[in-house]
């Protein structure tokens, strides 16, 4: 009986991820010695919006901006997830009441946090019971079509948080700079799921990028995702030893798009899915500019002591298939 159960678990893992590759990090929780991905079992996913606005953003403005962000994720043709507004509520986000609520909330203990997503999970089964998104009312917000100077764009931040709400982790496809007067700002981001927000007034993060689309399609595949897109896989070693946590980026020169993943096991293996067929340039880099805890559980040791390297050939990604294993080698800084 026990053996049959084990076989069933393995089968479900394989069938649940019949794609040959993965983009993105996903949320996972340990349940009964197994790891279970945090994702919605049924769609449409029903959500409530709170009935409270803030200066500059009425409750109706909020509902509309959040609705646009949900619609953006739902419009991905290769993903099956759908969402449904269940109603307006006076409940606050962050209360474990069985309903998924999005809304403003004052959280002085969460300084420097624009918004955050929470999950309530049945720890005996791994079932996702609810997910809430709170937007910190301590900040200035805007839903203006063109953005507003000095105010954070609610639709952009909602788009990022709904990615988490759907089960996606962070992407490391972004570039930043340290500001001489203090702080850090984003110069460019090739993923809505990059963890640092653009400056107030920017509406640049209202549009999903290739990496976001690959991630949501991997979690909730639909249509011809697995037959029209391709993947790229291989290993990363440093001084002949496998490397964990190396960031591997696949760049498509034809479209200019990027999709990335990490080496995620003790063998230094990586696999990047959701790629358009054709030639790709492959780069590997350390996650030495980021808060690693924002990407990986702190129980994992991520090696960041190596120099950036490129694969010495352009890699052909086939339609509906995998590139075959490529071997990336890096050296100490």
């Amino acid at each position: 009986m026990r053996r049959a159960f084990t076989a069933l678990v393995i089968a479900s893992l394989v069938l649940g991820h019949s794609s040959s590759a993965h983009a993105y990090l996903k949320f996972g929780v340990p349940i009964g010695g197994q790891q279970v991905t945090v994702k919605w079992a049924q769609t449409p996913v029903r959500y409530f919006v709170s009935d409270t606005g803030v200066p500059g953003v009425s409750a109706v403005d909020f509902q509309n901006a959040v609705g646009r962000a949900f619609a953006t994720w739902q419009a991905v043709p290769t993903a099956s997830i759908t969402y449904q507004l269940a109603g307006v509520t006076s409940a606050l986000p962050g209360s474990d009441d069985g309903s998924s609520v999005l809304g403003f909330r004052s959280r002085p203990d969460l300084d420097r946090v624009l918004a955050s997503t929470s999950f309530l999970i049945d720890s005996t089964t791994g079932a996702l019971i609810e997910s809430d998104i709170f937007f910190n009312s301590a900040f200035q917000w805007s839903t203006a079509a063109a953005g507003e100077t000095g105010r954070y764009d609610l639709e952009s931040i909602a788009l990022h948080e709904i990615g988490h709400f759907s089960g996606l982790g962070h992407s490391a496809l972004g570039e930043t700079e340290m500001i001489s007067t203090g702080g850090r700002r984003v110069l460019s981001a090739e993923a809505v799921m990059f963890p640092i927000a653009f400056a107030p007034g920017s509406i640049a993060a209202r549009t999903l990028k290739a990496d976001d689309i690959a991630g949501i399609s991997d979690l909730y595949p639909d249509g011809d995702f697995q037959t029209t897109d391709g993947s790229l896989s291989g290993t990363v070693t440093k001084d002949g030893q496998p490397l964990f946590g190396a960031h591997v980026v696949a760049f498509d020169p034809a479209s200019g798009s990027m999709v990335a993943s990490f080496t995620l096991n003790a063998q230094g293996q990586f696999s990047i899915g959701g790629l358009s067929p054709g030639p790709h340039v492959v780069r590997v880099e350390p996650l030495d500019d980021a808060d690693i805890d924002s990407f990986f559980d702190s129980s994992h040791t991520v090696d960041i002591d190596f120099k950036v390297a490129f694969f010495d050939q352009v890699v052909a990604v086939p339609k509906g298939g995998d590139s075959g294993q490529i071997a990336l080698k890096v050296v100490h800084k």
Partner: protein
Amino acid sequence: MIRKLFTVLALSILLYALPVRATVVIPADLGELSRDALAIARGRVAALDAQWTEDHGTIETMVTLEVESYLKGSLGSTLRFRVPGGELGRFRSIVVGAPEFAVNQRIVVFLGARGPSVPHVLGLNQGVFHVSRAADNSGWLVTSPVMMPATAGNVRVVRGDPARRPLALDQFEQTVRSLAGATK
């Protein structure tokens, strides 16, 4: 084909095994954290206790830290601070972006508080620095040097920069003490 299947299986299991964190933050540098903190403590995580919040709305975890040293302020030889999320009974609440701890971890934590309340971590994950032994066992290191303030002009952060390396713990602490005492 079988080999590919095993590769897929291995990667699937790995991905499941990686709980990741997330939120949208206003990034702070070490100077801001040092100045804003009510207390900065280095110590060992001694206990983790999940509980319902005062309004019984959700779950939070109280972290007990056995303090080895204060870099700023003082809250006693053992201090407690709260972080969102935790597990109670059959329910597990995860606030993505909130730091998670394990007993016996060594950390440097930047704490804030409003009024008489129990302290909280500044900036969620940004206010926690892990202390780990150097690979060659030569001493203790702290990561995240990118949070050091820029010195002259804006500085583009480049991955793989050979100049950016983990800091020795004593150097990190000296910097934090200096920043904590500085006025902006």
